[in-house]
């Protein structure tokens, strides 16, 4: 497929992904705003003890997601240099790290639920599961997108002058990482 000339000079796909990400910013922005607003405004917003939140595990998860972001960008860098093996390797690493994040998240959920922090135990629990749950759904979406790119990459579809989709998958994945970077301090550290 030849790249079509566009009036802005930006490929339509890339522009579309950015528009989509802008709407995602609004979506997460509205959830996070609601959290901030009720946390500061509600008289009944009890924060669980810090020990119950499991900061070490969440920190580990943050590292995992940041690492997956850098492997993602290295995958893109590889294909820009026409390095097929690099693309496949780094993408596979990204996907594995994504699953690791979800695994730890599931363990955290299980643990918190047992400790009595549930979806209906209070506003903190409600927001915790809603925000991280929505984020986890996005992680799953990102993994699926990456697996699709990985499959195509293994078939050798991408090359140094044809790799837009790798870039788009990357943009989405970095955004998912970015959201976590915001959620981590506001849910665990404050």
């Amino acid at each position, binding site marked *: 497929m030849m790249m079509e000339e566009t009036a802005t000079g930006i490929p339509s796909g890339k522009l579309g992904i950015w528009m989509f990400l802008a709407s995602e910013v609004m979506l997460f922005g509205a959830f996070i705003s*609601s959290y901030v607003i009720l946390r500061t405004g509600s008289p009944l917003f009890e924060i669980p003890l810090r020990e119950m939140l499991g900061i070490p595990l969440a920190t580990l998860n943050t590292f995992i997601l940041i690492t997956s972001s850098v492997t993602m960008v290295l995958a893109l860098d590889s294909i820009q240099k026409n390095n097929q093996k690099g693309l496949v390797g780094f993408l596979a690493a990204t996907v594995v790290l994504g699953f690791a994040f979800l695994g730890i998240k599931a363990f955290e959920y299980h643990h918190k639920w047992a400790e009595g922090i549930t979806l209906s135990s209070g506003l903190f629990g409600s927001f915790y599961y809603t925000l991280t749950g929505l984020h986890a759904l996005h992680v799953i979406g990102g993994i699926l997108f990456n697996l699709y790119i990985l499959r195509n990459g293994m078939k050798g579809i991408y090359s140094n002058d044809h790799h837009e989709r790798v870039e788009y998958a990357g943009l989405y994945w970095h955004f998912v990482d970015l959201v976590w970077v915001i959620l981590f301090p506001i849910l665990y550290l404050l």
Partner: protein
Amino acid sequence: MDQGHHKETFISKWVFSLDHKIIGLQYMFTSLSFLLSGFSLMLLMRWQLAFPGQPIPFLGRFLPESMAPGGVMLPEFYNQLGAMHGTIMIFLGIVPLGVGFFGNYFLPLQIGARDMAFPRLNMMSYWIYLLGGLVMLSSFMMPGGAAQSGWTSYAPLSVTAPAGQTVWILAMVLIITSSLFGAINFIVTTLNLRVEGLTWSRLPIFVWAQFVTAILLLFAFPVLEAGAVLQLLDRIAGTSFYLPAGLVVDGAPLERTGGGSPLLWQHLFWFLAHPEVYVLILPAMGIVAEIIANGTRKPLFGYKEIVGAMCFLGVMSFLVWAHHMFLSGMKTSLSYFFMTTTMIISIPSVAILTCLVLSLKGGSIRFTTPMLFAIAFLPMFGIGGLTGLPLGFTPTDVYLHDTYYVIGHFHYVVVTGTIIALFGGIYYWFPKMFGRSMNSFWSKVHFWLTILLMNGIFFPMFIQGLAGVQRRLYDPTAQLHNVAVQPTNVFMSYCAWGLLLAQIPFIVNFFYSMFKGKKTAENPWEATTLEWACPSPPLPHKNFEKTPTVHRGPYEYSVPGHKTDFYPQNAA
């Protein structure tokens, strides 16, 4: 990309089509059907309002016991009709017609594109919209009936309402998703697919209007999506995002932790729903601008001012939402802020209207059917807009809020304003879509009956509102102060039922002309914009025989020295 070379089956051509024109037509027929069904719900309500407590003649016999035992409508059913009327008209009727149909069909044509930027996404947004609409309608079959907390679905009432509300939320999430896909598509299409020479200052007003509308949808809708998810969790997962502590429902305390805020829902809702007002009106203004330039045979007055005002409207529409919530007892400083921004946002609306009115001055007007609708739009939208001002000031809003005055105000904007403009647009572009024109006599009959009856329905609402009649009342005669204006209700109901009959000439004329109407040339209105430079109907998946190049602005009518009184954008 190259669908043109493949042999198309019936399914790929008419059902799962990727062609923006077919998708546009799908949007048109679907949204017109929803408009009709939303309108029908109101016709039932109008019976209860005119003759409270009396059995509905004929139709009443077919309604189940749970809705209208013995043909007399239950209060719960009345509430369902009201909530669904608002939801269907706005989210399933007008927006999909104004944006989904008009935008889809004519935006690519006006910018000289072969299709939208993402045809597959375009198809998906139609099918998700249809699914959302069907889910929404199906909620009438839920136990306890459809959503009944108003189209605004205020918490906590909506949280404790029967199951129909859950269906409402799920349908809304589908509709929002569809709109977001559409918005992304429109924005990228406008940015990227303009043909050579079509600079921003040569873009028709209609394209500008659709572009700003898409931006509003893109940024406003996710916020309601978030709000809807929180409401869903409140309903099914036992959370308390919108529930304060100590709620008592039906005499029993609600088993929730509480701590949430009902006002949070109102804020999230209106953060979308105010920009939504401009989503409803901007495409209409765009259509009217196109028709007026064509009908007056002269350039629009203040093209740049209209464009600037539209962009300013877009920005400001995100800063006024809480004027719907003055009665919630917000801080004075906050209500002053929203009062001020509301007064500011009225300026660009008035500027656009003024430009459109001044465009008429000195023109040799052709009173075609579309032009009649466009001219009628001006005073009607003016009434709608100006009656909004007292609602933007807190002192007057305290009295008028939640009365029929508000209903009158927004129906003047949305019905006599937007719907009239959309009708005009259908008459204007009908020859482009089908290569035939609609019968002129019957379209004029349709116009005059419609505009008169619409005023007959909505004008008395101002009188009722000023007399203190609250909205959402099941039985208007239950309060003594309402009885004095009850005769207006009877009059309005007859006008509403008449309005249904007045649509018959339109419907018959539409389908008859589609197949048997008089054949027309490529450019029957002698217009200048690009959509008239392609065959009628435009070529499948391709639109233009040869990609046009643009040489001038969109409204070069009566250019001195030119041989005809119109100078098309693409003419060399």
